């Protein structure tokens, strides 16, 4: 049972459009009952509201899924209506199947309930007795009783199906969601900018613990001693989306270093929890030190839950983690991963939870700062090499994404709300709301945000940067201790302009151009560089070109750093990239003089001997690097000779340079490259990730050099020397992973070696036997670390060694015609997989690798292709990593074998699987490895599939924003933006041009325009007249997205369901069947251009439409989602009469008035 009290923050109100809005100052939530058996929750909330406007007669709150029993305002029963346009985005079983249409409708629906715009699903009418009071700006208390039954979003129940009490079964429940999703589990103002103080009460079974935000004030037994009530108090103003709850039979661990920090895990995992948490205090110390600021909350709680929505989620003073992050001390690979997750969670406590954001477009500041300080932690803990490697990785990721998908815009501005100004026309979704973003985009958004913070740091220095953060935090903590009435709380919200102002105050520097380039604008820079050395002038002529016309790119103008390593040393040059100058002359410092034997000074002051025989006798240049500090978000393609790359690899000390050199050497398969790579591989001073990369590059080079390769297969002798017994080189030493670099190398080398191919394009026998020997002689008895990852990688190596089977005809694969090598491989895999059942490895890594290997065997035609094995491993009840691996195989099978039944099976899983993460992963893996794409025809692409997917994103995923966006993504991948080509043309189409007032038969439904057709005048709508029932006219396709755009823009002003409006419009024009009360308003329409459509008229249409609908849906009895478009109301108070009519007529309000209270 959950009860919560939200004290709304008034400061947010001022920024709102002046609507009848309330400011809530305090929030009390009380959950009285949590039933694990039935997966239900009963509770009430009480909001204290300080009205900031006169005549507050309506209060809008966010609420989804909750069944609301009664609402009282200051102890008076208040009527309410509930309308959620996001439940079903496009109404009516129309034939409309185009993604443009959906996206704009979806954006409009989300806007219609956007708390930042003063909207909400739940509209409460303030009893008229209180209006007077409202005039006097008195405090109002809104009391709402609600329940949740089998919630599909917001709260997740994990109830294992075993015997015993709920506590013995480790049943637990926790809150989750993508961005602001608190509305799924209690009615609130679900906005990051609405702060209030909280009082939370949870009554749970005596064997359970309820963990929530704030301080646990006391725990009290109920009368019968069978339950306990946990009382929490959160005096720091906090936004509702930062409130969370976890209830379960948790084991409790008080942090031995910080007693105000408490950790919770599921039963039996305590030893792992101790191990995992043993270094959390170091992260705390680090952040507090660099921010020179105490951790803002008085306590911190970490909870590890099963079936987590995301690995890490941060809420005010607590974080919820996936239980799969826990590890024992024997596990090497998971340890750094988990530490990173903890560090991320803690960074978000400062920026994200304590400091919240003013609006969605300020999100980048929070993500940027938390990501940036997390990076500083990485640098301190894992070293500079790891940090630079990570920055490069992140940079490569964002560059790749933007070049492929189009730009990522950190700070979108929506001026006037016209769709024309859509800042990201290249995307198939809107970035106006966090809930319309694709998950992938959001990840990239976070990545770009922290990279941009790093750019700012480069510009103003880290010291100033940290001062800015400190300033933000100290202002916020001063504000947090003030009363609401002091109007200080807005200091706890960060905005882009406030952040920039702080930067300019603290540093005195103008970072305007930088912000304009990377924050207000999307895209990355793509450089192409080449050079020539002019011997006469002793000048390096560098040419840097840019591609700023392809998608996702932008033009860069400004300084760029170039580092030139010459014989006499390393020199930095700062060049100005200007509009038209491509060529840059850089004077060289040294003459070529390779004969003098002198040490070469490097950038870091080191002096080294080099064998200079490889270099060009006339040139003193060893290597050149463009933008070595990664101070531009860019991709550089630079041309230099192979020996220069080799020098760079061997002698440049920066890991980023080494990695760039390795990637560049892939196209230079020469003995010199081979030697350079081998040398790096052997260098134990070299960063291990560079050495790992060198392994794979060496394999590639070896394959290209196949005909001239001498000696044993690449890396074999190296591996033997490093890891095998001296006396018998064919036997690997018994495992000892005490040196982690060696461990990672030992793991990787076989995987890379297995990529080698001989002249017949087969993996050399010698390599295969070598790997089989490694498996055979693997002996971990003396090792203090687990070898599960190592064994898993050996299986991956076997997988890599597979090549397509030579099949004479397409006969079915049988045991008898199995290739002998494959037989050996299969035997190993079988044994591993079977052993795993008896002695499961950590995170079942071995099963995961075996499943991948089996899929590879199938794919290459060695064994019959069959998804049934994978389907059994994909069932609910296997470890999540195993399920994902199995699903990946099924998805691959679906694509290769074009199996519609498997696709169907997958889509069923998306709808029914209990684990949200699995559903999400299925859709995103399907989008990554699609069974077909819009480009190619496929038998799978049929009308039923289109309908199914449409339904999925239209209404089937309404409980999970992330999943809905995943579905949109998949739909986009499969069908593109326009009407899927597999759909038949509507039998009879009519194009109606409202502006020109004429209708024509629709010639080509297919010629739909992309989203960027704003120049088209007028409003064109296609209608079809099928023989349909009652509603007679079914709107079929909206031909021109603009029609919707206008509509939706209008709609943004008020909550409404877009297509209802549209529908009514047509009903009126063509049939006149609309109830007469509307006609007046409607008739003015045809002559009126759309944009001038006044609010009043549309909203009154709504009111009427409800009656209309109500009529025939009445019989069907209300399934919850049927209510959605019925209970509309307008804001205009002139229509008071009709208003109340609507209220009393709606089923929801009917129940509300005197429905028996179920709680207490």
């Amino acid at each position: 049972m959950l009860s919560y009290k939200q004290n709304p923050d008034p400061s947010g109100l001022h920024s709102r459009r002046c609507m009848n809005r309330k400011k809530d100052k305090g929030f009390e939530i009380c959950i009285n009952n949590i039933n694990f058996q039935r997966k239900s929750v009963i509770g009430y909330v009480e909001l204290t509201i300080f009205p900031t406007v006169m005549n507050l007669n309506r209060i809008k709150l966010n609420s989804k899924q909750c069944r609301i029993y009664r609402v009282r305002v200051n102890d008076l029963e208040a009527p309410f209506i509930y309308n959620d346009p996001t439940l079903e985005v496009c109404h009516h079983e129309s034939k409309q199947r185009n993604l443009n249409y959906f996206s704009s409708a979806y954006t409009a629906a989300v806007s219609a309930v956007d708390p930042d715009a003063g909207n909400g699903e739940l509209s409460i009418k303030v009893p008229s007795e209180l209006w007077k009071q409202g005039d006097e700006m008195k405090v109002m208390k809104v009391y709402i009783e609600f329940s949740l039954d089998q919630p599909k979003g917001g709260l997740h129940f994990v109830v294992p199906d075993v015997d015993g009490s709920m506590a013995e079964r480790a049943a637990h429940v926790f809150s989750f969601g993508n961005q602001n999703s608190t509305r799924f589990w209690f009615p609130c103002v679900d906005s990051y900018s609405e702060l209030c103080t909280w009082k939370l009460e949870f009554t749970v079974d005596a064997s359970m613990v309820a963990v929530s935000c704030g301080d646990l004030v006391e725990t009290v037994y109920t009368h019968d001693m069978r339950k306990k009530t946990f009382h929490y108090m959160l005096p720091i103003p906090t936004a509702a989306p930062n409130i969370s709850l976890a209830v379960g039979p948790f084991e409790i661990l008080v942090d031995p270093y910080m007693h105000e920090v408490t950790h919770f895990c599921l039963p039996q995992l305590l030893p792992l929890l101790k191990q995992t948490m043993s270094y959390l205090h170091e992260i705390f110390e680090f952040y507090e030190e660099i921010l020179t600021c105490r951790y803002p909350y008085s306590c911190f709680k970490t909870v590890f839950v099963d079936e987590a929505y995301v690995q890490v989620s941060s809420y005010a003073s607590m974080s919820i983690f996936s239980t799969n992050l826990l590890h024992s001390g024997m596990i090497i690979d998971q340890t750094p991963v988990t530490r990173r997750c903890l560090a991320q969670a803690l960074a978000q406590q400062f920026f994200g939870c304590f400091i919240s954001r003013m609006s969605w477009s300020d999100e980048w500041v929070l993500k940027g700062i938390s990501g940036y300080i997390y990076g500083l932690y990485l640098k301190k803990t894992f070293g500079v090499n790891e940090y630079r490697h990570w920055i490069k990785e992140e940079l490569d990721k964002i560059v790749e994404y933007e070049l492929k998908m189009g730009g990522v815009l950190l700070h979108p501005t929506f001026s006037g709300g016209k769709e024309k100004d859509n800042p990201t026309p290249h995307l198939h979704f809107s970035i106006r709301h966090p809930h319309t973003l694709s998950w992938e985009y959001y990840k990239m958004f976070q990545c770009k945000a922290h990279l941009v913070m790093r750019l700012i740091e480069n510009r103003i220095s880290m010291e100033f940067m940290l001062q800015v953060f400190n300033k933000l935090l100290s202002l916020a903590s001063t504000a947090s201790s003030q009363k609401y009435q002091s109007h200080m709380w807005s200091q706890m919200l960060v905005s882009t302009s406030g952040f920039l102002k702080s930067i300019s105050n603290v540093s005195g520097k103008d970072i305007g151009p930088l912000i304009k380039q990377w924050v207000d604008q999307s895209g990355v820079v793509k450089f192409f560089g080449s050079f020539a050395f002019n011997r006469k002038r002793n000048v390096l002529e560098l040419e840097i070109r840019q591609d700023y016309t392809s998608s996702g790119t932008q033009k860069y103008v400004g300084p760029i750093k170039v580092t030139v390593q010459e014989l006499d040393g390393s020199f930095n040059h700062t060049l100005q990239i200007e509009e038209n100058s491509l060529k840059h002359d850089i004077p060289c410092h040294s003459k070529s003089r390779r004969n003098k034997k002198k040490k070469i000074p490097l950038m870091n002051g080191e002096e080294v001997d080099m064998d200079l025989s490889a270099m060009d006798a006339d040139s003193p240049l060893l290597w050149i690097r463009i933008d070595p500090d990664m101070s531009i978000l860019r991709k550089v393609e630079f041309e230099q000779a192979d020996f220069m790359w080799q020098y760079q690899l061997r002698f440049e000390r920066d890991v980023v340079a080494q990695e760039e050199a390795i990637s560049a050497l892939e196209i230079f398969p020469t003995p010199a490259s081979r030697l350079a790579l081998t040398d790096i591989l052997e260098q134990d001073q070299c960063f291990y990730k560079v050495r790992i990369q060198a392994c794979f590059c060496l394999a590639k080079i070896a394959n290209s050099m196949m005909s001239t390769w001498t000696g044993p297969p690449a890396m074999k002798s190296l591996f033997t020397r490093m890891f095998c017994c001296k006396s018998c080189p064919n036997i690997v030493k018994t495992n000892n992973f005490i040196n982690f670099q060696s461990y990672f190398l030992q793991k990787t080398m076989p995987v890379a070696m297995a990529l080698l191919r001989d002249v017949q394009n087969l993996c050399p026998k010698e390599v295969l036997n070598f790997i089989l020997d490694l498996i055979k002689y693997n002996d971990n008895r003396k090792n203090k670390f687990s070898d599960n990852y190592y064994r898993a990688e050996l299986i991956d190596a076997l997988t890599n060694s597979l090549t397509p089977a030579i099949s004479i005809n397409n006969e079915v694969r049988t045991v008898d015609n199995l290739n002998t090598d494959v037989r050996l491989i299969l035997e190993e895999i079988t044994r591993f997989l079977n052993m795993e059942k008896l002695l499961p490895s950590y995170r079942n890594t071995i099963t995961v690798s075996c499943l991948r290997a089996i899929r590879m065997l199938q794919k290459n035609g060695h064994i019959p292709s069959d998804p049934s094995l994978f389907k059994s491993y994909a069932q609910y009840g296997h470890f999540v990593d195993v399920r994902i691996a199995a699903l990946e195989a099924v998805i691959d099978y679906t694509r290769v074998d074009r199996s519609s039944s498997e696709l169907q099976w997958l889509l069923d899983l998306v709808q029914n699987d209990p684990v949200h993460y699995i559903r999400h992963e299925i859709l995103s893996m399907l989008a990554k490895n699609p069974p077909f794409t819009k480009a190619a025809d496929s038998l799978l692409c049929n009308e039923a599939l289109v309908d199914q997917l449409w339904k999925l994103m239209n209404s089937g995923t309404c409980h999970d924003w992330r999943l809905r966006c995943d579905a949109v993504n998949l739909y986009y991948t499969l069908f593109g933006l326009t009407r899927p080509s597999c759909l038949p043309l509507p039998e009879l189409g009519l194009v109606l041009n409202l502006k020109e007032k004429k209708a024509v038969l629709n010639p080509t439904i297919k010629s739909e325009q992309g989203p960027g057709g704003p120049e088209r005048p007028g409003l064109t709508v296609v209608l079809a007249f099928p023989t349909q029932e009652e509603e007679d006219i079914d709107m079929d396709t909206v031909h021109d997205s603009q029609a919707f755009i206008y509509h939706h823009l209008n709609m943004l002003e008020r909550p409404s369901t877009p297509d209802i409006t549209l529908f009514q419009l047509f009903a009126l024009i063509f049939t006149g069947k609309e109830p007469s009360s509307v006609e007046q308003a409607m008739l003015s329409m045809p002559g009126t251009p759309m944009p001038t459509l006044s609010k009043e008229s549309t909203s009154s249409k709504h009111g009427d439409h409800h009656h209309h609908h109500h009529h025939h849906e009445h019989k069907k009895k209300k399934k919850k989602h049927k209510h959605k478009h019925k209970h509309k109301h307008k804001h205009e108070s002139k229509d008071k009469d009709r208003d109340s009519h609507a209220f009393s007529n709606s089923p929801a309000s009917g129940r509300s008035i005197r429905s028996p209270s179920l709680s207490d």
Partner: protein
Amino acid sequence: MADSVVMGSGSLNSGSRSGSSKTSTSPTDNYQLARRRTLQVVVSSLLTECGFESAEKAAMETLTEMMQSYITEVGRCAKATCEHTARSTPTLSDVVITLVEMGFNVDTLPVYAKRSQRMVITAPPITNASVVPKALIAGQKRTHPTYIPSHFPEFPDPHTYIKTPTFREPVSDYQVVREKAASQRRDVERALTRFMAKTGETESLFKDDISAFPLIAAKPSAIPYLSALLPSELELQTLEETDSSEQDDQTDTENNSSNVSQDDQTDTENNSSNVSQDDQSADKENVVLPPGGVVPTGKANEENMIDNPYLRLVKKHKGRRKKLKFIY
């Protein structure tokens, strides 16, 4: 020693009796029987001397027992006395002191010994010294070095204390051992998994031959994360073993893998060693509670020092929902 004293003082003729002692099995038994018989003869003759004509068997035995005890005690004390003076062989004076200690008037002894009516008992025949089977002598026994008196026992055979060199190649040995260990493990695993596969449900990769490459069927479990996250007992066991021998392990590492450079440490490595240390210290300090949140009474004191709200006792319900007024 004591025995020999007895023998010396009471030499008598028991030859007639000794023949019947063949029944006893061991030489020790034999010896003891013979001694006892000798004592009986002595007792009988003393009795005769005193004028007894006959005695009951029980009386005889008692007297014999007393005599034996007395002589034994004399012997024991004499030895103790002699050892007290750091010698190994009792001398006459030791015996005299002993007798004095035992309250015996030594001066009367010469007179008693020379009494006229004493009976002379012939010495028992010297039994053939039992043949001690000669131990196998392997190699040359070492002679005593000069500083060891010759009376000390001889060195044992050399094979009992000298390392015997063998002539097997340890190198090939290693290979064979590894080979053996590997194939043994593989055989065990294969047999085990085959057995499991035969006795339970299986899945197969081939439609035509279900028995080839049988895979144990995947069974969903209600709480899958437990087995996936917790180390198996086998691993824990291994860990314990390695922990105890960790010291050896480390040196081993340094010896046989010279390519591991210890000075080149990544941060991860640092962390891991921290982790293990932390772990130990954490173990000591960690406060663990059962989920119920009830403080075990035994530990209560210790834990009360940590003020964590989750460790506090759960309050009893008092009255109706009192207004919570504990605000900061």
